[in-house]
């Protein structure tokens, strides 16, 4: 009886190890090493230059310029 118990215990331990190993292998094989996965990086801060009034500007005037009616009439003038 004692020998039978010991044999069952050993069999249980061995079968458990084998099953665990298969599970681990199965999990490992699900990763395809040929696929390159790019890490998702957080978007960096975007730089939006502003016109003289702190807005994004109008009429195509670049940063540091503003659309207004000046000496040359309507046009882009420096801040």
């Amino acid at each position: 009886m004692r020998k039978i118990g010991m044999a069952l215990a050993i069999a249980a331990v061995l079968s458990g190890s084998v099953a665990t190993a298969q599970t681990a292998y199965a999990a490992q094989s699900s990763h395809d090493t040929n696929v390159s996965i790019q890490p998702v990086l957080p978007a960096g801060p975007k730089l939006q230059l502003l016109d003289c009034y702190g807005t994004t500007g109008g009429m195509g005037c670049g940063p540091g310029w503003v659309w207004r009616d000046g000496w040359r009439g309507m046009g882009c003038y420096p801040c």
Partner: protein
Amino acid sequence: MKIRTMAGGFATAAVLTMGGFGYAAAQPGDFSTLPVDPNLITDSLAYSAAPPVFNPNGQPGVQAVYTHRDGSRQITSTVLVLPDAQAASAALDGARAELAGKVANGKTQAAAVGSGGTMLTGTSPDGSKSVTVLSFAEGNTATTLEFDGASTDPAPSDLVLELGRKQDTAIRDWQAA
């Protein structure tokens, strides 16, 4: 070379004047086409012109006043047509002396326009306006272009020079016609 050219020009003018074909004699009193409209170098609608004043202050020539549509800027063009270059130079000196009392904190710098071109920048005596005056001679003409604006909005020097050069070209074309 330049001096020789100028001397030649003066001699030619003197000969033409003596012969009765001086600049003023060639186009007696027809000064209406002399002033250059500043709309030529703007968005073409910025300025409106008042009727020209002929022979301002009893001197032969023309004065035109252009007012910006928002009323805050004004350009006054004065072209005097005198008997000869010496008279034009003397008239220019007189105009500059008069301006000295009209412009406060004035700074004068040479301007590459016409002959003896200078640009005076400053403010009105009470400080309420910016004042820029470009003056130059061309042959027997003496020209002043005055730009009046808000104290915080002086006329840009590139605009002053551009209009001045166009005015100088118009005078030379008028003289050659």
